[in-house]
């Protein structure tokens, strides 16, 4: 083939569909993730330890809570903590990739920023699934958690999908902060949000002012919603509003940072 006809043929090429997204890329990203021992350990072991510490050793764990017992509620709380920690950590890895120049490298490929975000979100969901599964598995084998079988499935799925809220948070933080301190910032933010969301200690044990404040923090709405299938009672619009507003904030922040990033690099 002459250079001319090679060029003519090349000009006819089509860009890849879906902005370069493919399941194979997600698989490669997951493989990368599994290789990262520190992240894996923190994501899977820490929630289990919290659960063993907070969820099973209290005197009131067998007391009834909605359709199950207190231990079931604790399990859901800790699983949510584990899941959001996993997605936030994964999302924040873009910070490291930016520092390594990988994001820039990807920009000389057909991969679109949107496809990249979707890949990151799906990858973070894989880790979140591991965290939820680990906590639920420990819950199952320790034999203290009691709730109907369908609630295990429903609450597990709610926690898992709900954790995407913090994938957006992680991406936002990952684009905003330098890679040196993004991990610490994320860990601190997660811990504060988890306390304020009532994941470690029930909100009813907080002073009244703090309880009011807690209702405006990012994990409050999501936490109430994932507990709702177990707890029953009335569904409050404030929970959904809290979730939607924080999701909007994180997504807008991440998109804004991404735009800024692509304009400059």
């Amino acid at each position, binding site marked *: 083939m002459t*250079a001319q006809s*090679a*060029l003519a043929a*090349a*000009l006819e*090429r*089509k*860009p*890849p*569909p879906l902005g*370069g997204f*493919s399941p*194979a*890329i997600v698989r*490669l990203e997951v*493989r*990368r993730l599994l*290789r*990262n021992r520190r992240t894996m350990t923190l994501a899977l072991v820490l929630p289990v330890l919290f659960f063993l510490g907070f969820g099973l050793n209290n005197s009131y764990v067998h007391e009834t809570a909605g359709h199950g017992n207190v231990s079931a509620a604790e399990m859901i709380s800790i699983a949510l903590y584990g899941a959001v920690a996993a997605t936030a950590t994964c999302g924040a890895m873009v910070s490291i*990739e930016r520092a*390594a*120049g*990988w994001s*820039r*490298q*990807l*920009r*000389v*490929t*057909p*991969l679109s920023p949107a496809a990249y975000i979707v890949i990151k979100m799906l990858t973070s969901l894989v880790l979140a699934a591991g965290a939820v599964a680990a906590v639920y598995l420990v819950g199952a084998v320790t034999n203290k958690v009691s709730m109907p079988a369908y609630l295990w499935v429903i609450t597990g799925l709610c926690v898992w999908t709900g954790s995407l809220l913090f994938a957006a948070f992680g991406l936002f933080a990952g684009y905003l902060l330098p890679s040196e301190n993004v991990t610490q910032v994320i860990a601190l933010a997660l811990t504060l949000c988890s306390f304020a969301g009532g994941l470690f200690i029930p909100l009813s044990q907080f002073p009244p002012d703090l309880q009011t404040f807690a209702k405006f923090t990012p994990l409050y709405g999501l936490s109430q919603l994932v507990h709702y299938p177990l707890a029953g009672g009335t569904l409050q619009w404030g929970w959904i509003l809290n979730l939607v507003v924080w999701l909007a904030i994180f997504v807008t922040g991440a998109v804004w940072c991404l735009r800024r990033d692509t304009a*400059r*690099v």
Partner: protein
Amino acid sequence: MAFLGPNGAGKTSTIDMILGLSRPDAGEVEVYGMAPRQAVRKGLVSAVMQAGGLLKDLTVAETAAYTARLFAVSRSVGEVLERAGITAIAGRRVGKCSGGEQQRLRFAMALIPDPQLLILDEPTQGMDVEGRRGFWKAIRDDAALGRTIVFATHYLEEADAYADRVVLISKGRIVADGTAAEVKGLACGRTIRATLPGADETALRAMPGVEGVEVRGDTVLIHSADTDAVARRLLTQTPARDLEITSRGLEEAFIALTGDGAADPFDRSQAAT
């Protein structure tokens, strides 16, 4: 083609615009008649960037496979690793590879879409001599297949040794464009050295195209931008013999054309010493 210029001349800025990584402040960039980003998406243009751009926790083969998955049309991972000469380290983590090996991996990644235009930005920066030589061999083998390769460099030897065409820029403007020999000639002209007993310096100076004459005993040194014409005249109209024509190095051309005194590259007065 070599894209040569001192640090800060605008090489990387130009490349970023060709790749669609940044927008020009004024005017428009088109690559193969389309927007740069579209050319990248179609795999017409690819690039080997300066340092960075790799993930330490992937292996060499995985990195190439990752890139291959992003393009609609791609060559096989095995083939590009072979071309870049890194088949032997395919299973190695990127973080454990030397600078030269990482650069070959970047080259392999750039070959994945089988681009029409391949851009290398300072490709051998930080490589040792051996790594550099091996890298250029891989590049030249590839260029022999008919691909257009543009490389930015501030190593003059590289431009001199590996480019068919040299474009020299300074402060964002093109100051010379031609073969390495032409660019050298453009800056300083060439020098004829000949044996000419009893040379008449005034007569020599009067010859067309002559810019400077130096008589050292029986030897004359003549600077000229058109040494061919001067040489023809010397050989036919004077008893001059032992003619030698030498260009000054690209280095002098570089300094002459990019230095502060180089407002007009066609002002050759500085060569007439």
